[in-house]
Protein backbone atom coordinates (compact mmCIF):
# COMPACT_ATOMS: atom_id res chain seq x y z
CA UNK A 1 0.00 0.00 0.00
CA UNK A 2 1.47 3.40 -0.90
CA UNK A 3 2.07 5.63 2.10
CA UNK A 4 -0.03 8.74 2.50
CA UNK A 5 1.94 11.93 2.00
CA UNK A 6 0.34 14.04 4.66
CA UNK A 7 2.06 17.26 3.69
CA UNK A 8 -0.01 17.29 0.49
CA UNK A 9 -3.33 17.51 2.30
CA UNK A 10 -5.02 20.79 3.11
CA UNK A 11 -5.82 21.46 6.78
CA UNK A 12 -9.49 20.66 6.21
CA UNK A 13 -8.61 17.39 4.50
CA UNK A 14 -6.32 16.52 7.39
CA UNK A 15 -9.20 17.15 9.75
CA UNK A 16 -11.36 14.76 7.73
CA UNK A 17 -8.63 12.13 8.16
CA UNK A 18 -8.54 12.84 11.89
CA UNK A 19 -12.23 12.07 12.12
CA UNK A 20 -11.50 8.70 10.54
CA UNK A 21 -9.04 8.13 13.43
CA UNK A 22 -5.82 8.86 11.56
CA UNK A 23 -3.39 9.99 14.26
CA UNK A 24 -0.64 10.78 11.75
CA UNK A 25 -2.91 13.27 10.06
CA UNK A 26 -3.50 14.79 13.47
CA UNK A 27 0.25 15.14 13.99
CA UNK A 28 0.66 16.81 10.61
CA UNK A 29 -2.17 19.21 11.37
CA UNK A 30 -0.54 20.07 14.68
CA UNK A 31 2.91 20.56 13.13
CA UNK A 32 1.55 22.79 10.45
CA UNK A 33 -0.58 25.01 12.66
CA UNK A 34 1.42 25.20 15.86
CA UNK A 35 3.82 28.02 15.01
CA UNK A 36 1.24 30.51 13.87
CA UNK A 37 -1.20 29.62 16.64
CA UNK A 38 1.55 30.04 19.19
CA UNK A 39 2.47 33.49 17.82
CA UNK A 40 -1.19 34.46 17.59
CA UNK A 41 -1.80 33.27 21.14
CA UNK A 42 1.11 35.29 22.51
CA UNK A 43 -0.37 38.37 20.93
CA UNK A 44 -3.60 37.91 22.83
CA UNK A 45 -1.94 36.93 26.07
CA UNK A 46 1.86 37.27 26.17
CA UNK A 47 2.49 34.51 28.67
CA UNK A 48 4.11 31.45 27.13
CA UNK A 49 3.09 28.79 29.69
CA UNK A 50 -0.58 29.74 29.34
CA UNK A 51 -0.45 29.72 25.56
CA UNK A 52 1.24 26.32 25.66
CA UNK A 53 -1.38 24.95 28.02
CA UNK A 54 -4.21 26.37 25.96
CA UNK A 55 -2.87 24.80 22.77
CA UNK A 56 -2.36 21.49 24.53
CA UNK A 57 -5.95 21.54 25.76
CA UNK A 58 -7.37 22.56 22.40
CA UNK A 59 -5.57 19.87 20.42
CA UNK A 60 -6.20 17.17 22.99
CA UNK A 61 -9.87 18.06 23.14
CA UNK A 62 -10.01 18.17 19.34
CA UNK A 63 -8.81 14.58 19.09
CA UNK A 64 -10.75 13.18 22.02
CA UNK A 65 -14.04 14.70 20.86
CA UNK A 66 -13.42 14.48 17.14
CA UNK A 67 -16.49 12.38 16.44
CA UNK A 68 -18.87 14.92 17.97
CA UNK A 69 -17.28 18.15 16.73
CA UNK A 70 -18.86 19.79 13.71
CA UNK A 71 -16.07 21.85 12.18
CA UNK A 72 -16.27 23.33 8.69
CA UNK A 73 -13.09 25.34 8.76
CA UNK A 74 -10.42 23.85 10.98
CA UNK A 75 -8.10 26.85 10.97
CA UNK A 76 -10.88 29.21 11.94
CA UNK A 77 -11.95 26.81 14.66
CA UNK A 78 -8.40 26.64 16.08
CA UNK A 79 -7.88 30.40 16.05
CA UNK A 80 -11.26 31.03 17.61
CA UNK A 81 -10.84 28.39 20.33
CA UNK A 82 -7.41 29.74 21.20
CA UNK A 83 -8.67 33.29 21.33
CA UNK A 84 -11.55 32.55 23.70
CA UNK A 85 -9.47 30.24 25.88
CA UNK A 86 -6.79 32.89 26.35
CA UNK A 87 -9.21 35.73 26.90
CA UNK A 88 -10.45 33.77 29.91
CA UNK A 89 -6.89 33.79 31.32
CA UNK A 90 -6.60 37.53 30.88
CA UNK A 91 -7.88 39.82 33.59
CA UNK A 92 -8.95 42.65 31.24
CA UNK A 93 -10.21 40.45 28.41
CA UNK A 94 -8.74 42.72 25.74
CA UNK A 95 -6.67 41.89 22.68
CA UNK A 96 -3.35 43.67 22.56
CA UNK A 97 -2.95 46.07 19.66
CA UNK A 98 -0.87 44.30 17.06
CA UNK A 99 1.33 47.31 16.33
CA UNK A 100 2.47 47.25 19.93
CA UNK A 101 4.32 44.01 19.28
CA UNK A 102 8.07 43.86 19.21
CA UNK A 103 9.89 43.48 15.92
CA UNK A 104 10.87 39.85 16.27
CA UNK A 105 7.28 38.69 16.43
CA UNK A 106 6.94 38.45 12.69
CA UNK A 107 3.50 37.44 11.62
CA UNK A 108 4.17 36.63 7.99
CA UNK A 109 6.95 34.31 6.93
CA UNK A 110 8.55 36.98 4.74
CA UNK A 111 11.43 34.98 3.38
CA UNK A 112 13.44 37.73 1.79
CA UNK A 113 16.14 35.79 -0.03
CA UNK A 114 13.77 33.65 -1.99
CA UNK A 115 12.46 33.62 -5.56
CA UNK A 116 13.01 36.04 -8.44
CA UNK A 117 13.34 39.81 -8.26
CA UNK A 118 9.59 40.23 -8.59
CA UNK A 119 9.04 37.97 -5.57
CA UNK A 120 11.68 39.86 -3.60
CA UNK A 121 10.02 43.13 -4.44
CA UNK A 122 6.68 41.84 -3.14
CA UNK A 123 8.37 40.51 -0.01
CA UNK A 124 9.96 43.87 0.61
CA UNK A 125 6.64 45.69 0.35
CA UNK A 126 5.01 43.09 2.59
CA UNK A 127 7.66 43.47 5.26
CA UNK A 128 7.15 47.21 5.29
CA UNK A 129 3.42 46.96 5.92
CA UNK A 130 2.24 47.65 9.46
CA UNK A 131 1.82 44.50 11.51
CA UNK A 132 -1.95 44.82 11.66
CA UNK A 133 -2.08 44.83 7.88
CA UNK A 134 0.24 41.85 7.60
CA UNK A 135 -2.03 40.06 10.03
CA UNK A 136 -5.12 40.64 7.90
CA UNK A 137 -3.33 39.41 4.77
CA UNK A 138 -2.17 36.32 6.62
CA UNK A 139 -5.63 35.51 7.93
CA UNK A 140 -7.18 36.14 4.56
CA UNK A 141 -4.81 34.26 2.28
CA UNK A 142 -2.76 31.90 4.38
CA UNK A 143 -5.42 30.87 6.87
CA UNK A 144 -8.12 31.20 4.21
CA UNK A 145 -10.60 33.00 6.46
CA UNK A 146 -13.58 34.94 5.16
CA UNK A 147 -13.93 38.63 6.01
CA UNK A 148 -16.60 37.76 8.58
CA UNK A 149 -14.30 35.26 10.24
CA UNK A 150 -11.40 37.73 10.25
CA UNK A 151 -13.69 40.27 11.90
CA UNK A 152 -14.49 37.80 14.65
CA UNK A 153 -10.89 36.74 15.26
CA UNK A 154 -9.53 40.27 15.37
CA UNK A 155 -12.51 41.67 17.23
CA UNK A 156 -13.26 44.35 14.64
CA UNK A 157 -16.29 45.11 12.45
CA UNK A 158 -16.91 43.34 9.16
CA UNK A 159 -16.93 46.62 7.24
CA UNK A 160 -13.66 47.55 8.82
CA UNK A 161 -12.07 44.33 7.52
CA UNK A 162 -13.23 45.06 3.95
CA UNK A 163 -12.02 48.64 4.14
CA UNK A 164 -8.65 47.69 5.48
CA UNK A 165 -8.18 45.00 2.87
CA UNK A 166 -9.05 47.47 0.15
CA UNK A 167 -6.56 49.96 1.49
CA UNK A 168 -3.79 47.39 1.86
CA UNK A 169 -4.22 45.86 -1.57
CA UNK A 170 -4.44 49.10 -3.44
CA UNK A 171 -1.61 50.62 -1.47
CA UNK A 172 0.32 47.61 -2.59
CA UNK A 173 -0.64 48.23 -6.16
CA UNK A 174 0.50 51.84 -6.07
CA UNK A 175 3.81 51.01 -4.43
CA UNK A 176 4.48 48.22 -6.88
CA UNK A 177 3.80 50.58 -9.80
CA UNK A 178 6.19 53.16 -8.40
CA UNK A 179 8.93 50.59 -8.12
CA UNK A 180 8.50 49.09 -11.57
CA UNK A 181 8.34 52.49 -13.32
Amino acid at each position, binding site marked *: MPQKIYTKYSPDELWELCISND*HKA*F*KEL*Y*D*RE*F*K*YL*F*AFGLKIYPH*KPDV*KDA*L*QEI*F*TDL*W*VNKSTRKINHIRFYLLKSLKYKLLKCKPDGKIIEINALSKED*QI*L*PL*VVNDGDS*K*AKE*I*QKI*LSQLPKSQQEI*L*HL*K*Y*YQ*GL*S*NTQIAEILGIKYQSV*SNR*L*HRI*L*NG*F*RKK*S*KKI*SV
Partner: protein
Amino acid sequence: MDQESNFDSLLNNDFFIEWIKTHPSESEWQAFKAKHPLPDEDLELARSIIVQVTKPPSNEGQDYFQAEVWKNIEKATIPKYKSRLKVFGFLAIGLLALLFIFFKYTQQSPQVDTNIALKKADQWIEYTNTSDSNWPVDLSDGSQVILEPQAKLKYPRHFSKKTRKVQLTGHAFFDIAHDTLKPFYVYTNEALIRVLGTSFYVKAGESDKDVQVIVKTGKVAVYNGKDVVEYRAKKIDRIEPLVVTANQIATLEKSNLKFHKRLVSTPMLTKSLESIKKIHFENTTIHEIALALEKAYGVEIVIDERIKSDCRLTTTLTDQPLFEKLKLICDPLGLEYLEKDVRIYIIGNCKI
Protein backbone atom coordinates in the same frame (compact mmCIF):
# COMPACT_ATOMS: atom_id res chain seq x y z
CA MET B 1 -15.89 49.27 -12.46
CA ASP B 2 -12.59 51.05 -12.22
CA GLN B 3 -9.33 49.15 -12.06
CA GLU B 4 -8.87 49.78 -8.39
CA SER B 5 -12.05 48.00 -7.35
CA ASN B 6 -11.45 45.35 -10.01
CA PHE B 7 -8.12 44.61 -8.45
CA ASP B 8 -9.73 44.60 -5.04
CA SER B 9 -12.51 42.22 -5.96
CA LEU B 10 -10.08 39.86 -7.66
CA LEU B 11 -8.08 39.57 -4.45
CA ASN B 12 -11.34 39.02 -2.58
CA ASN B 13 -12.52 36.30 -4.91
CA ASP B 14 -12.33 32.97 -3.12
CA PHE B 15 -12.26 31.02 -6.38
CA PHE B 16 -9.36 33.05 -7.66
CA ILE B 17 -7.48 32.66 -4.37
CA GLU B 18 -8.04 28.91 -4.25
CA TRP B 19 -7.07 28.57 -7.89
CA ILE B 20 -3.76 30.41 -7.36
CA LYS B 21 -3.07 28.26 -4.29
CA THR B 22 -3.22 25.14 -6.47
CA HIS B 23 -0.36 26.58 -8.58
CA PRO B 24 -1.93 26.59 -12.07
CA SER B 25 0.36 25.91 -15.03
CA GLU B 26 1.86 28.77 -17.04
CA SER B 27 -0.44 28.13 -20.02
CA GLU B 28 -3.55 28.18 -17.80
CA TRP B 29 -2.32 31.40 -16.28
CA GLN B 30 -1.67 33.00 -19.69
CA ALA B 31 -5.18 32.03 -20.83
CA PHE B 32 -6.65 33.56 -17.70
CA LYS B 33 -4.73 36.81 -18.20
CA ALA B 34 -5.91 37.11 -21.79
CA LYS B 35 -9.55 36.91 -20.75
CA HIS B 36 -9.41 39.16 -17.68
CA PRO B 37 -10.11 42.90 -18.09
CA LEU B 38 -7.35 43.98 -15.69
CA PRO B 39 -3.91 44.79 -17.14
CA ASP B 40 -1.34 41.98 -16.95
CA GLU B 41 0.71 43.99 -14.53
CA ASP B 42 -2.09 44.00 -11.93
CA LEU B 43 -2.88 40.34 -12.47
CA GLU B 44 0.76 39.41 -11.96
CA LEU B 45 0.82 41.49 -8.80
CA ALA B 46 -2.34 39.85 -7.46
CA ARG B 47 -0.88 36.43 -8.10
CA SER B 48 2.45 37.29 -6.46
CA ILE B 49 0.74 38.65 -3.37
CA ILE B 50 -1.21 35.44 -2.88
CA VAL B 51 1.83 33.23 -3.57
CA GLN B 52 3.99 35.18 -1.13
CA VAL B 53 1.44 35.42 1.64
CA THR B 54 0.44 31.76 1.49
CA LYS B 55 3.97 30.46 1.96
CA PRO B 56 4.18 28.24 5.02
CA PRO B 57 5.57 30.00 8.10
CA SER B 58 9.32 29.76 8.37
CA ASN B 59 9.84 31.51 11.68
CA GLU B 60 12.00 29.17 13.72
CA GLY B 61 12.59 29.22 17.42
CA GLN B 62 9.38 27.71 18.72
CA ASP B 63 10.40 24.17 17.77
CA TYR B 64 11.17 23.38 21.36
CA PHE B 65 7.69 24.37 22.51
CA GLN B 66 6.15 22.62 19.57
CA ALA B 67 7.83 19.33 20.49
CA GLU B 68 7.15 19.74 24.18
CA VAL B 69 3.44 20.44 23.80
CA TRP B 70 3.10 17.63 21.28
CA LYS B 71 4.54 15.16 23.76
CA ASN B 72 1.74 15.93 26.18
CA ILE B 73 -0.94 15.88 23.51
CA GLU B 74 0.36 12.54 22.31
CA LYS B 75 0.17 11.07 25.78
CA ALA B 76 -3.41 12.18 26.09
CA THR B 77 -4.54 11.16 22.62
CA ILE B 78 -2.83 7.86 21.84
CA PRO B 79 -5.22 5.25 23.20
CA LYS B 80 -2.40 3.15 24.62
CA TYR B 81 -1.69 5.81 27.19
CA LYS B 82 -4.01 5.24 30.11
CA SER B 83 -3.94 6.51 33.59
CA ARG B 84 -5.70 3.64 35.26
CA LEU B 85 -6.97 4.67 38.61
CA LYS B 86 -8.47 1.39 39.69
CA VAL B 87 -5.53 -0.72 38.69
CA PHE B 88 -3.36 1.73 40.49
CA GLY B 89 -5.03 1.01 43.77
CA PHE B 90 -4.07 -2.63 43.60
CA LEU B 91 -0.66 -1.82 42.29
CA ALA B 92 0.01 0.62 45.08
CA ILE B 93 -1.14 -1.79 47.76
CA GLY B 94 0.90 -4.55 46.15
CA LEU B 95 3.97 -2.40 45.95
CA LEU B 96 3.49 -1.18 49.46
CA ALA B 97 3.18 -4.69 50.83
CA LEU B 98 6.14 -5.97 48.87
CA LEU B 99 8.34 -3.04 49.75
CA PHE B 100 7.40 -3.10 53.36
CA ILE B 101 8.24 -6.78 53.65
CA PHE B 102 11.30 -6.39 51.54
CA PHE B 103 12.78 -3.60 53.57
CA LYS B 104 11.74 -4.92 56.90
CA TYR B 105 13.54 -8.19 56.34
CA THR B 106 16.56 -6.96 54.49
CA GLN B 107 17.61 -4.47 57.15
CA GLN B 108 17.94 -1.75 54.58
CA SER B 109 15.76 0.37 56.72
CA PRO B 110 17.47 3.72 56.10
CA GLN B 111 16.11 3.59 52.57
CA VAL B 112 12.62 2.58 53.53
CA ASP B 113 9.89 4.62 51.99
CA THR B 114 6.68 3.35 53.44
CA ASN B 115 4.77 6.41 52.33
CA ILE B 116 4.57 4.89 48.90
CA ALA B 117 2.41 6.85 46.57
CA LEU B 118 -0.89 5.61 47.91
CA LYS B 119 -2.25 9.07 48.45
CA LYS B 120 -1.29 10.09 44.98
CA ALA B 121 -3.39 7.42 43.37
CA ASP B 122 -4.05 9.44 40.24
CA GLN B 123 -0.38 10.05 39.55
CA TRP B 124 0.35 6.63 38.07
CA ILE B 125 0.50 6.01 34.37
CA GLU B 126 0.20 2.64 32.70
CA TYR B 127 1.51 2.48 29.19
CA THR B 128 1.50 -0.46 26.79
CA ASN B 129 3.42 -0.25 23.55
CA THR B 130 0.87 -1.59 21.09
CA SER B 131 2.80 -0.32 18.09
CA ASP B 132 5.17 -2.56 16.16
CA SER B 133 8.29 -0.53 16.87
CA ASN B 134 10.21 0.48 19.97
CA TRP B 135 8.72 3.31 21.97
CA PRO B 136 10.63 5.64 24.33
CA VAL B 137 9.09 6.65 27.64
CA ASP B 138 10.69 9.53 29.52
CA LEU B 139 10.45 9.46 33.29
CA SER B 140 10.31 12.48 35.56
CA ASP B 141 13.91 12.06 36.76
CA GLY B 142 15.34 12.21 33.24
CA SER B 143 15.67 8.46 32.88
CA GLN B 144 14.47 6.87 29.68
CA VAL B 145 12.86 3.50 29.11
CA ILE B 146 12.61 2.13 25.59
CA LEU B 147 9.72 -0.28 25.40
CA GLU B 148 9.71 -3.00 22.80
CA PRO B 149 6.38 -3.89 21.18
CA GLN B 150 3.87 -5.33 23.67
CA ALA B 151 5.88 -4.20 26.69
CA LYS B 152 3.92 -2.61 29.51
CA LEU B 153 5.30 -0.09 31.99
CA LYS B 154 3.62 1.39 35.04
CA TYR B 155 5.33 4.49 36.32
CA PRO B 156 4.47 7.51 38.42
CA ARG B 157 4.03 10.90 36.81
CA HIS B 158 6.47 12.13 39.45
CA PHE B 159 8.74 9.96 41.53
CA SER B 160 8.49 10.13 45.30
CA LYS B 161 11.15 11.92 47.31
CA LYS B 162 13.08 8.85 48.35
CA THR B 163 12.85 6.19 45.66
CA ARG B 164 12.03 5.63 42.04
CA LYS B 165 9.83 2.63 41.21
CA VAL B 166 8.36 1.25 38.04
CA GLN B 167 6.76 -2.04 37.04
CA LEU B 168 7.56 -3.83 33.82
CA THR B 169 5.98 -6.65 31.85
CA GLY B 170 7.75 -7.44 28.60
CA HIS B 171 11.08 -6.33 27.14
CA ALA B 172 12.63 -2.94 27.65
CA PHE B 173 15.92 -1.07 27.77
CA PHE B 174 16.47 1.21 30.77
CA ASP B 175 18.83 4.17 30.79
CA ILE B 176 18.68 5.37 34.35
CA ALA B 177 19.79 8.81 35.50
CA HIS B 178 22.37 8.57 38.26
CA ASP B 179 21.07 9.42 41.71
CA THR B 180 22.70 7.59 44.61
CA LEU B 181 20.16 8.97 47.06
CA LYS B 182 17.19 7.61 45.14
CA PRO B 183 17.56 3.98 44.12
CA PHE B 184 15.63 2.95 41.07
CA TYR B 185 13.54 -0.24 41.27
CA VAL B 186 12.10 -2.28 38.44
CA TYR B 187 9.42 -4.71 39.55
CA THR B 188 8.69 -7.73 37.42
CA ASN B 189 6.62 -10.77 38.29
CA GLU B 190 9.55 -12.95 39.28
CA ALA B 191 12.35 -10.54 40.07
CA LEU B 192 13.11 -7.19 41.61
CA ILE B 193 15.88 -5.10 40.13
CA ARG B 194 17.62 -2.35 42.10
CA VAL B 195 20.01 0.18 40.55
CA LEU B 196 21.45 3.58 41.24
CA GLY B 197 22.26 4.80 37.78
CA THR B 198 23.15 2.67 34.83
CA SER B 199 21.79 1.25 31.62
CA PHE B 200 20.46 -2.25 31.19
CA TYR B 201 18.00 -4.34 29.25
CA VAL B 202 15.22 -6.36 30.88
CA LYS B 203 13.37 -9.31 29.33
CA ALA B 204 10.36 -10.09 31.48
CA GLY B 205 7.62 -11.09 29.12
CA GLU B 206 4.76 -13.22 30.39
CA SER B 207 5.46 -15.91 27.79
CA ASP B 208 9.24 -15.92 28.33
CA LYS B 209 10.59 -18.96 30.14
CA ASP B 210 13.04 -16.80 32.07
CA VAL B 211 13.64 -13.25 33.22
CA GLN B 212 16.84 -11.76 31.86
CA VAL B 213 18.72 -8.66 32.91
CA ILE B 214 21.49 -7.61 30.54
CA VAL B 215 23.72 -4.82 31.82
CA LYS B 216 25.26 -2.37 29.40
CA THR B 217 26.94 -0.03 31.86
CA GLY B 218 27.23 0.19 35.63
CA LYS B 219 26.05 -2.27 38.23
CA VAL B 220 22.64 -3.76 38.93
CA ALA B 221 21.33 -5.86 41.83
CA VAL B 222 18.70 -8.48 40.97
CA TYR B 223 16.59 -10.07 43.70
CA ASN B 224 14.76 -13.33 43.25
CA GLY B 225 11.06 -12.77 43.84
CA LYS B 226 10.88 -16.18 45.56
CA ASP B 227 13.50 -15.11 48.10
CA VAL B 228 11.51 -12.03 48.87
CA VAL B 229 8.44 -14.15 49.52
CA GLU B 230 10.37 -16.66 51.68
CA TYR B 231 11.88 -13.85 53.64
CA ARG B 232 8.49 -12.63 54.41
CA ALA B 233 7.50 -16.09 55.64
CA LYS B 234 10.73 -16.14 57.67
CA LYS B 235 11.82 -19.34 55.99
CA ILE B 236 15.20 -17.83 55.25
CA ASP B 237 16.95 -15.26 57.34
CA ARG B 238 18.83 -13.28 54.74
CA ILE B 239 18.49 -12.37 51.12
CA GLU B 240 21.36 -11.94 48.70
CA PRO B 241 20.97 -10.11 45.46
CA LEU B 242 22.77 -11.26 42.38
CA VAL B 243 25.08 -8.41 41.40
CA VAL B 244 25.33 -8.00 37.67
CA THR B 245 27.89 -5.70 36.03
CA ALA B 246 28.51 -4.46 32.51
CA ASN B 247 28.48 -7.08 29.77
CA GLN B 248 26.85 -9.69 32.01
CA ILE B 249 23.47 -11.35 31.72
CA ALA B 250 21.55 -12.50 34.78
CA THR B 251 18.94 -15.15 34.05
CA LEU B 252 16.19 -16.28 36.37
CA GLU B 253 14.54 -19.49 35.21
CA LYS B 254 10.85 -19.32 35.86
CA SER B 255 10.50 -23.10 36.10
CA ASN B 256 12.79 -23.51 39.13
CA LEU B 257 13.35 -19.86 40.09
CA LYS B 258 17.11 -20.28 39.94
CA PHE B 259 19.56 -17.58 39.06
CA HIS B 260 22.67 -17.79 36.99
CA LYS B 261 24.79 -15.30 35.16
CA ARG B 262 27.15 -15.31 32.21
CA LEU B 263 28.87 -12.92 29.82
CA VAL B 264 26.99 -11.49 26.88
CA SER B 265 27.99 -13.00 23.55
CA THR B 266 29.48 -9.73 22.29
CA PRO B 267 30.83 -7.68 25.16
CA MET B 268 30.78 -3.96 24.41
CA LEU B 269 33.17 -1.29 25.62
CA THR B 270 31.67 0.23 28.73
CA LYS B 271 30.43 3.76 28.47
CA SER B 272 33.27 5.57 30.18
CA LEU B 273 35.84 3.94 27.95
CA GLU B 274 34.04 4.20 24.68
CA SER B 275 36.69 6.59 23.43
CA ILE B 276 39.41 3.95 23.67
CA LYS B 277 38.72 2.30 20.35
CA LYS B 278 42.31 1.62 19.40
CA ILE B 279 45.03 0.36 21.67
CA HIS B 280 48.63 -0.30 20.70
CA PHE B 281 50.83 -2.61 22.72
CA GLU B 282 54.62 -2.63 22.26
CA ASN B 283 56.39 -5.66 23.71
CA THR B 284 53.85 -5.73 26.52
CA THR B 285 53.20 -8.56 28.96
CA ILE B 286 50.00 -10.50 28.55
CA HIS B 287 49.08 -9.45 32.07
CA GLU B 288 49.13 -5.78 31.16
CA ILE B 289 47.14 -6.35 27.99
CA ALA B 290 44.55 -8.33 29.93
CA LEU B 291 44.30 -5.55 32.50
CA ALA B 292 43.63 -2.97 29.76
CA LEU B 293 40.88 -5.16 28.33
CA GLU B 294 39.42 -5.72 31.77
CA LYS B 295 39.11 -1.98 32.24
CA ALA B 296 37.72 -1.37 28.77
CA TYR B 297 35.02 -4.03 28.98
CA GLY B 298 34.41 -4.33 32.70
CA VAL B 299 35.00 -8.08 32.38
CA GLU B 300 37.29 -10.04 34.66
CA ILE B 301 40.17 -11.82 32.91
CA VAL B 302 42.08 -14.49 34.82
CA ILE B 303 45.51 -15.57 33.63
CA ASP B 304 46.91 -19.04 34.17
CA GLU B 305 49.56 -19.05 36.93
CA ARG B 306 51.99 -20.86 34.65
CA ILE B 307 52.12 -17.87 32.32
CA LYS B 308 54.96 -15.60 33.44
CA SER B 309 55.88 -12.00 32.74
CA ASP B 310 58.23 -13.01 29.95
CA CYS B 311 55.18 -13.70 27.84
CA ARG B 312 55.18 -10.50 25.77
CA LEU B 313 53.47 -9.30 22.61
CA THR B 314 53.45 -6.40 20.15
CA THR B 315 50.03 -5.82 18.64
CA THR B 316 47.40 -3.20 17.83
CA LEU B 317 43.80 -3.77 18.78
CA THR B 318 41.09 -1.74 17.07
CA ASP B 319 37.35 -2.13 17.13
CA GLN B 320 37.06 -5.90 16.86
CA PRO B 321 34.64 -7.60 19.26
CA LEU B 322 36.24 -8.65 22.57
CA PHE B 323 36.47 -12.32 21.70
CA GLU B 324 38.27 -11.57 18.45
CA LYS B 325 40.71 -9.35 20.33
CA LEU B 326 41.39 -12.25 22.68
CA LYS B 327 42.07 -14.52 19.74
CA LEU B 328 44.53 -11.99 18.26
CA ILE B 329 46.40 -11.94 21.55
CA CYS B 330 46.33 -15.64 22.33
CA ASP B 331 47.05 -17.17 18.90
CA PRO B 332 50.58 -15.82 18.34
CA LEU B 333 51.54 -16.83 21.88
CA GLY B 334 50.07 -20.30 21.57
CA LEU B 335 47.61 -19.61 24.34
CA GLU B 336 43.91 -20.27 24.57
CA TYR B 337 41.06 -18.43 26.22
CA LEU B 338 37.84 -19.82 27.58
CA GLU B 339 34.75 -18.31 29.08
CA LYS B 340 33.39 -19.70 32.34
CA ASP B 341 30.60 -18.11 34.36
CA VAL B 342 31.33 -14.43 34.02
CA ARG B 343 35.09 -14.63 33.74
CA ILE B 344 37.52 -15.16 30.91
CA TYR B 345 40.44 -17.51 31.53
CA ILE B 346 43.65 -17.42 29.52
CA ILE B 347 45.47 -20.71 29.72
CA GLY B 348 48.29 -22.68 28.09
CA ASN B 349 52.05 -22.50 27.78
CA CYS B 350 53.50 -19.32 26.39
CA LYS B 351 55.56 -20.08 23.28
CA ILE B 352 57.78 -17.04 23.57
